[in-house]
């Protein structure tokens, strides 16, 4: 039985996205009508909680639980904010671009529903500047939605009001970290904030704020309309729903596919991506963008979901496969990753600012044939020093994952660089 397509069903690559009328004809804004006419915000939260939806931005936190941390009720602090995190910059990841460009109304409907569920007074879309096409699509869709009464005052006569603002950023990966994003939206340098308090209670201008990823929010209209049982039944394993998987690197057909959550990595690579290019062999993959541990060939049959990837010492992350082939030097690849993280470190905390620069310098030396005995151990200790609880935010934690796993899985390659004083791939 072919898997059900949910989030990408309206997307026609190469063509303009559905306009408001076409989106409505395809069933669009029915979920919003249903929620506003017959559901309480709590009922929307409950449906999402029951659906088992977990955040698609990389961390996988249960979405309904996150929403439930926002204080509601008459004496709760106001205004409350919802911010859509459309700052996708995780290397290897392009799923949100696809959704934003391909079906902007779906994202807006999800944004309004999420805002309603947490009774947000104001919503923002925080979009990275580089997504120009997405910006144009969103601007048009927001104008259409506002003209049709889906945004603004007293939406569809429900008494609920929501202004939605598109905020276009100006670069820097760290803006995707939710508290850094909030600082950026306040006109500051995008450095993360100390937690607790979490943004859910003390976020934008010190008020309760939910920040959710684009793909996460895209799921909400479908859960509202078709119910949590249907949604959890879409997957192949313990984690619910469909997932936008992508593959890049030396595969025959790099691309994006919406498949049941829990689709095996082997199926993604061999079937959907068409297998490896002629002359290239699979050595390993980052399963969820740059901030995840390498998965070696022996675990190629792992299911791509949260629980299964943790069992093989990695993470689902963004579900974006980046493939390492046998013609690519693993030291060179890790050097590329750590240079990225070092450059994108905001510089706020020492383990990240100094640790990443040091790691990148050592990796460069090893790759250039200037590595020395002991460098591998130093890299290992640097990875440990950027571990959980030692840094301000998850940037360095993410950077440590491909580094530590590469040192474990491709150790012989690192050693060869040092003993032979050269990169064997050059």
């Amino acid at each position, binding site marked *: 039985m072919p898997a059900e397509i949910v989030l990408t069903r309206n997307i026609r690559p190469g063509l303009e996205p559905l306009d408001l009328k076409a989106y409505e004809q395809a069933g669009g804004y029915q979920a919003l009508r249903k929620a506003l006419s017959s559901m309480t915000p709590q009922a929307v939260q409950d449906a999402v909680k029951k659906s088992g939806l977990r955040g698609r931005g990389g961390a996988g936190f249960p979405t309904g639980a996150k929403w439930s941390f926002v204080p509601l009720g008459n004496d709760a602090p106001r205004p409350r904010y919802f911010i859509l995190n459309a700052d*996708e*910059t*995780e*290397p*290897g*990841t*392009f799923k*949100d*671009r696809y959704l934003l460009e391909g079906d902007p109304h779906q994202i807006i409907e999800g944004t309004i529903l999420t805002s309603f569920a947490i009774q947000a007074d*104001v919503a923002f879309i925080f979009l*990275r*500047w*580089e*997504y*120009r*096409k997405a910006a144009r699509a969103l601007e048009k869709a927001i104008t259409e939605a506002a003209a049709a009464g889906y945004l603004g005052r007293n939406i569809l006569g429900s008494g609920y009001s929501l202004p939605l*603002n598109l*905020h*276009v*950023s*100006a*670069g*820097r*990966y760290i803006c995707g970290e939710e508290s850094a994003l909030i600082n*950026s*939206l*306040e*006109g*500051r*340098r*995008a450095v993360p904030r100390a937690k607790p308090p979490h943004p859910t209670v003390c976020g934008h*201008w010190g008020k309760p704020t939910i920040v959710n990823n684009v793909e996460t929010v895209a799921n909400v209209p479908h859960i509202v309309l078709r119910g949590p049982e249907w949604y959890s039944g879409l997957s192949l394993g313990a984690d619910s729903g469909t997932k936008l998987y*992508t593959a*890049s*690197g*030396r595969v025959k057909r*790099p*691309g*994006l596919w919406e498949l049941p959550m829990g689709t095996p990595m082997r199926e993604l690579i061999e079937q959907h991506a068409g297998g490896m290019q002629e002359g290239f062999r699979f050595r390993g993959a*980052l399963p969820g963008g*740059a901030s995840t541990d390498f998965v070696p060939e022996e675990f190629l049959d792992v299911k791509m979901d949260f629980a299964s990837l943790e069992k093989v010492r990695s993470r689902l992350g963004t579900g*974006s496969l*980046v*493939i*390492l*082939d046998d013609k*690519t030097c693993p030291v*060179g*690849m890790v050097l*590329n*990753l750590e240079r*990225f993280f070092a*450059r*994108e470190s*905001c510089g706020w905390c020492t383990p990240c600012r100094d640790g990443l620069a040091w790691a990148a310098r050592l990796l460069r030396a090893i790759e250039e044939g200037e590595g020395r005995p002991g460098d591998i151990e130093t890299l290992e200790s640097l990875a440990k020093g950027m571990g959980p609880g030692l840094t301000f935010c998850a940037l360095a934690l993410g950077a440590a994952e491909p580094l530590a796993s590469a040192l474990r899985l491709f150790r012989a390659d690192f050693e060869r660089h040092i003993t032979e004083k050269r990169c064997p791939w050059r």
Partner: protein
Amino acid sequence: MLTPEEKTEIEAECARYERKRSAVIEALKMVQRRRGCVSDETVRDVAGVLEMTPAEVEGVATFYSLIFRRPVGRHVILMCDSVSCWTMGYDAIREHLEAKLRIRLGETSADGRFTLLPASCLGACDLAPAMMIDEELYGNLTPPKVDEILAKYS
């Protein structure tokens, strides 16, 4: 000094936010679109309109990679150097661009046509290697394709 139009545009931007300072990034980008980059004077002027200190605006202006504090060429090339593009041949494309424009990353060509900047993942990994010129995204780059693309810009 900001022109009256620039000032009006920044004030209109402020109206979209609860507090003026939220508009600082948009204000700097707007001035940059008109003047090419953000000068010391612009930092002070924008600070004045947004009721921020010049130091706060400078902090923002120097943090974000797409706000330029130095002049750039007529067109800005953002060359993605993240992992998928690197795997798929980033180095060859960068070397080709550097040789063709006779500049290194971070520099502007002598004729003022292009500034070549490194960029973090452009979210075009299925089209790797990729780059942007101004607002346009280009993927599946090869040296001949790069030549064709560059020829479109004067």
